[in-house]
């Protein structure tokens, strides 16, 4: 326990400034999103109610998405450890690769929990201020927010895991750049081949013909976003990604210099 306390302390101490910056940005965004809701909620007119619902959903979505990205993103510690020489020094410490990887995962999970709670707090404030009763509107904001949050965390974690592997196999800065470019182009090709770029599924339709994403698609997206099945799937993906993250970190700490 004392060992994990030390390891986690080191990581938190090193990422403190980064965390404070992210927190400020998050709170600024939250304040920006909250302003129109507060103004609309205070006006109390019935015409405003329908628009307010859309605004609240949009604001919660944006803030949750941002929170998820901030929580899941790479904290830059691996690179900082390589640059400072700590990575090499860690090989002479009695801590095992598994213990270090577990500490990395604990820090990642605590950030995910923290930004999740902040996003939830924002949603609670929005709902209270706007005075909207979601039960009456037939809308489940908790499910939607969890899906957006975990979905964004998963997407960013996937990139983080890929980045960790790139860092692991690059022997110098040039190799890091080359592998990075290859990975970036490769990811682009995969997205293109599987038609995963948003709005690009309909190749023969130009922007002049109207919206590239149809209303039907939007409705379908909304249904998926608010579905409990989606939540179940994303949660499973999240667990798998946590395991993959742990394995990537374990391998990274275990791998010796060439």
């Amino acid at each position: 326990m004392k060992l994990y306390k030390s390891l986690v302390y080191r990581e938190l101490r090193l990422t403190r400034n980064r965390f404070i910056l992210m927190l400020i940005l998050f709170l600024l965004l939250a304040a920006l999103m909250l302003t129109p809701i507060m103004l609309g909620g205070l006006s109390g007119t019935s015409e405003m109610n329908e628009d307010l619902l859309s605004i609240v959903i949009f604001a919660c979505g944006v803030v949750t998405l941002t929170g998820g990205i901030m929580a899941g993103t790479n904290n830059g510690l691996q690179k900082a450890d390589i640059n400072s020489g700590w990575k090499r020094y860690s090989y002479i410490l009695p801590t095992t690769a598994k213990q270090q990887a577990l500490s990395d995962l604990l820090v990642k999970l605590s950030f995910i929990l923290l930004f999740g709670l902040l996003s939830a707090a924002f949603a609670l404030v929005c709902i209270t201020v706007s005075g909207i009763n979601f039960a009456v509107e037939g809308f489940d904001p908790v499910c939607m927010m969890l899906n957006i949050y975990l979905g964004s965390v998963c997407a960013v974690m996937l990139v983080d895991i890929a980045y960790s592997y790139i860092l692991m196999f690059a022997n110098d800065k040039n190799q890091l750049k080359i592998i990075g470019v290859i990975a970036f182009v490769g990811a682009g090709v995969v997205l293109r081949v599987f038609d995963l770029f948003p709005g690009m599924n309909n190749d023969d339709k130009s922007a002049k013909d109207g919206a590239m994403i149809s209303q039907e698609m939007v409705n379908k997206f909304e249904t998926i976003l608010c579905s409990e099945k989606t939540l179940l799937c994303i949660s499973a993906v999240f667990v798998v990604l946590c395991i993959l993250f742990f394995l990537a970190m374990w391998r990274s700490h275990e791998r010796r210099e060439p």
Partner: protein
Amino acid sequence: MPATEGINMTAYENAIEIKGVTKRYDGFTLDNISFDVPKGCIMGFIGQNGAGKTTTIRSLLHITNIDSGEIRLLGLDHIKDETAVKNRIAVVFDELPFHDVFNAKDMARIFEGMYPEWDNTVYQQYLERFQLPIKKKIGQFSKGMKMKLQIACALSHNAELLVMDEATTGLDPVVRDEILHIFMEYLQNGERSILMSSHITSDLEKIADMVTFIDKGRILLTGYKDEIIEQHGILKCDKEKIQDIDAEDIVSIRLNNFGAEVMVNDRENVSYKYRDCVIDPASLDDIMLYYVHRDVKEWS
């Protein structure tokens, strides 16, 4: 169960045993090297830049994997018993590997969880002795302060083996002397050992009991420092006289305007053989210099 449980903690003769270690890089090979560092001994590990000192140290600390050979630290295998070994060793690198944002207090908080035998009182005593500020960021430390902090961290968990890679390089003579004095104190109970790599041979002449000399990835000499210095000498003679000296006695020959200086590897025997020549004692620096030129034999 702790990794150290069940392992005999003190019964070992050699703090370091390196047998037939080979590590190949593109353009450099650490070639089948072997040497031991007996318990309670300071071993100076000397050689010019790029000779293989750092590669040897990285191999024995398992920072890099070796291609073949066997390494035992404190009587234990350096890979199989890695955690047990690393609880009982300390390492000082030539550059401070700690992040600039930390201070001395942060380092104590980090290490006290990692080392079961970490002693905050000892650490505090070293900080006071070195006059290191507790709350000042490491990034604002001078080179000497950084090295002192690294040494304070290394000596505060009761390590039985201290490994140093060019730790005194770049430090002024006063700081170097202070640090060497600390190392002598550290060894006083006879249970601790030091492997100290350096190309500043004057430091090693002051404190080392033994010396290992590496060049181009091969161990050329290893043994007690006094014996090595005793065995070698610089024979001064005319250039014409060189032909009379047996090739097996010569390490290499330095030519100058006044004649030749020949490094001989059996001073006592050579002094009987060539009674008309003067043989001066050789320093570690001289020995290193002449051995580096052993392949060309004659140099100036």
